[in-house]
């Protein structure tokens, strides 16, 4: 049996090679639409993610208008949104829909599919030395399930009763009862169906990433020689494959409660004076199922950004990453802990305080591997010969945001403090900085760094620097003041604070935050323009290895075809971080170890 299996494995390699050689007559459909080339699939994920990011970002600008200028009317909003903004003022129902869809879109469609989908697809085969993913067919299906999920979610924006509006966490009973709100009607069903498709996509993608990394590494590419991007993407995929199915279970039960009259999450509910027959269910059960995905999800979002930042910081510091094995170990520790802390989102649900204290301990433990990573990034930068490329700036920005946002996580992880801070703007500030903006920075770093490999052209640097500085300053200006609002008890998800005298003191601050958010959104549009402009008109790449990088993707031709390497796949002789060794600026992984080379680093 084992010999047959090995033979089969060899077959796969053989057929890939043959496939590569016979690939001269590609049609538009096979090359750009139903492509099985991992690089094209990555670009499909990236472009779809960018479109979603524009939609999700625009939503936040619209609801920030309401929060910043609650007394004003904007007639153009009525032209745009029709009866949802009658008289130029956003309706409360639609405000909730916007907040919900902003979260859903950015968490799942942009920072999960757009981030992992893009860079896992693009970098895994290129950096481990494989011609393509283990199963290019399933990889293509992964994108098209994502496309299907996207289509359904996009359609839900246009149904008469509006898209889902119960928050991105879709807690029942609000999400389980169609009578609860207009957004709990067909919009909620579409949300659940779309997410089911999304989970299929994520599963197909994740299985491919894991098997490709385990089975398809080129000769000499032992696990400890993998670039840190690959390690991060590996654990991201494992997290996704093991946590999304639990959300699937939760979503299926919720669909049944909504449509088949079951009572998994419902009990003792009175709506409009009418007692519902549902009894015996538990709304808290849903929160457990949701957060068993929901917490690993934040690491699914964050780990790829960590991995890419590690790689980009090392390359542009012209120094080996500090503590490679500690970096791998801390990602592993984070991946394990990610599964053991979900109830810290539920401290105020009536959770047993003793159980709560266990979750406090496990939550605070995450600070250890996180701190290891932060110190390793800082020591990599320490006394380095730094090149401030746009990718490097965003990677450093990622580290800055991760520190700022991580520190407030220590506050929130304490159940005693969380009682006060739960569901306030302090939480909003915390997670936007540490996983929202930080992961966006990782994603931008990746796009700026690997754009030359993706399209054979550079992004425009001037626009990139404007993009960076406006975004980093703007992100802090938007989210830093929210900590003060949250400490003062200002709750999240409220439509209008002007009726509370306790929060009136923040009306100026709210206006300021809304104003900055518009500027930051405009800077993102500049990036989008830069992206599409440079794709066609950018400066052409002339050097196969423009950043002087060690990893294998830069040993391919400037515009690699399907199969990545025209000849043999390069063999690997060393780890990915031999920078500034033996007086050489960098030594790529495919360079054999010289006789006089010093051991270690």
């Amino acid at each position, binding site marked *: 049996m084992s010999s047959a299996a090995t033979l089969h*494995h060899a077959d796969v390699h053989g057929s890939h090679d043959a496939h590569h050689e016979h690939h001269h007559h590609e049609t538009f459909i096979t090359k750009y639409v139903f492509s099985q080339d991992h690089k094209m699939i990555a670009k499909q994920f990236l472009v779809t993610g960018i479109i979603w990011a524009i939609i999700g970002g625009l939503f936040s600008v619209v609801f920030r208008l309401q929060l910043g200028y609650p007394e004003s009317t904007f007639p153009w909003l009525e032209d745009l949104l029709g009866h949802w903004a009658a008289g130029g003022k956003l309706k409360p129902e639609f405000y909730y829909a916007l907040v919900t869809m902003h979260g859903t879109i950015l968490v799942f469609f942009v920072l999960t599919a757009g981030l992992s989908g893009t860079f896992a697809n693009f970098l895994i085969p290129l950096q481990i030395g494989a011609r393509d993913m283990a199963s290019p067919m399933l990889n293509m299906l992964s994108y098209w399930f994502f496309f299907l999920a996207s289509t359904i979610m996009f359609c839900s924006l246009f149904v008469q009763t509006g898209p889902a509006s119960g928050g991105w966490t879709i807690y029942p009973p609000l999400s389980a009862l169609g009578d609860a709100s207009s957004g709990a009607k067909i919009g909620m069903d579409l949300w659940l169906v779309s997410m089911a498709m999304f989970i299929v996509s994520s599963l197909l993608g994740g299985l491919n990433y894991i098997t490709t990394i385990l089975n398809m590494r080129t000769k000499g590419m032992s696990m400890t020689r993998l670039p840190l991007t690959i390690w991060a993407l590996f654990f991201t995929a494992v997290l996704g494959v093991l946590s999304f199915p639990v959300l699937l279970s939760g979503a299926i039960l919720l669909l049944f409660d909504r449509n088949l009259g079951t009572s998994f999450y419902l009990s003792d509910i009175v709506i409009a004076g009418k007692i519902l027959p549902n009894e015996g269910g538990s709304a808290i059960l849903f929160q457990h199922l949701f957060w068993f995905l929901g917490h690993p999800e934040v690491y699914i979002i964050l780990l790829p950004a960590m991995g890419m930042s590690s790689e980009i910081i090392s390359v542009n510091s012209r120094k080996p990453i500090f503590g490679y094995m500690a970096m791998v170990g801390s990602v592993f520790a984070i991946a394990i802990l990610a599964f053991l802390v979900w109830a810290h989102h539920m401290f105020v649900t009536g959770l047993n305080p003793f159980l709560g204290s266990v979750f406090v301990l496990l939550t605070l433990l995450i600070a250890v591997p996180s701190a290891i990573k932060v110190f390793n990034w800082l020591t990599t930068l320490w006394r380095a010969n730094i090149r401030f490329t746009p990718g490097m700036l965003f990677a450093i920005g990622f580290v800055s945001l991760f520190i700022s946002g991580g520190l407030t996580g220590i506050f929130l992880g304490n159940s005693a403090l969380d009682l006060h801070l739960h569901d306030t703007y302090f939480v909003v500030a915390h997670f936007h900085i540490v996983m929202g903006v930080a992961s966006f920075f990782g994603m931008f770093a990746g796009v700026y760094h690997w754009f030359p490999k993706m399209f054979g052209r550079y992004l425009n640097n001037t626009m990139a620097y404007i993009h960076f500085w406006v975004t980093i300053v703007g992100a802090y200006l938007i989210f830093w003041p929210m900590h003060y609002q949250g400490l003062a008890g200002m709750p999240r998800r409220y439509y209008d604070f002007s009726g509370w005298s306790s929060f009136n003191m923040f009306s100026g601050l709210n206006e300021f935050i809304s104003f900055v958010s518009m500027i930051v959104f405009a800077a993102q549009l500049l990036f989008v323009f830069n992206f599409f402009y440079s794709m066609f008109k950018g400066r052409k790449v002339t050097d196969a290895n423009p950043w002087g990088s060690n990893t294998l993707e830069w040993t391919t031709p400037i515009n690699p075809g399907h199969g990545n390497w025209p000849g043999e796949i390069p063999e690997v002789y060393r780890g990915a971080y031999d920078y500034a060794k033996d007086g050489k600026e960098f030594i790529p992984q495919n360079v*054999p170890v010289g006789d006089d080379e010093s051991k*270690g680093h």
Partner: protein
Amino acid sequence: MSTTAIPTNTKWWNGGRSPFNISYGKVMMWYFLMSDAFTFGAFLISYGTIRFSVNHWADPNHVFNAFPFAGHANLPLAFVSLMTFILIFSSVTMVLAVHEGHKMNRKGVEKYMILTILGGLAFLGCQAWEWTHMITGDHAVLVNGQIEHWGTTVTRNPWGPEVMHNGAMVATPGPIAFGGYFFGITGFHGFHVFSGVIINLVMYIKTKLGHFDQRGHYEMIEKAGLYWHFVDLVWVFVFLCFYLV
């Protein structure tokens, strides 16, 4: 970070080969099964949470005591034992099909795949009968002082605690979560068996067409087998949680 050249090929994890000596397809199937185990795990843990948060639960010896064509005979768990036996037997025939595949014996693979498919279909047929019996079977329940006749559905549970009424013991409505979880989880498992039958059918047709002989190995049968055994294993847990406990 080691930079010394280690001769490759001698170490499993050094790249250029599968560290487990198995094809990517099987690695993928194992990870898929892990993922699927989490889906079922979430369902079963939810079930356990709700079941042990209420004071009374339906007695399986009482609920599952019917047998086709046996009238009102009291045969606790007899039918579900038969179902379980059928499913486990289909796992045995699956093992034999994989074994014949290793020997490159097409006829043998065909024979045992047919038996496996029949086992799967028989199980699904049994489940259809059991569901129909539960949904349509009438049971006397005391509701607001009146006797009503209820089937077991996702909104009705006639298996609640018994009380004395007019000199006879009669059941009261039980927690409605029983029907929801029973039909939800056995249904989800049944859906897995159904898709397994479809997969096995495709494998049978491919065997019949000689695809695996051309390919030189029957690995697809092995992968289908992994899935089929997993579905059986899940049934063991479902059986334990709904019928035995």
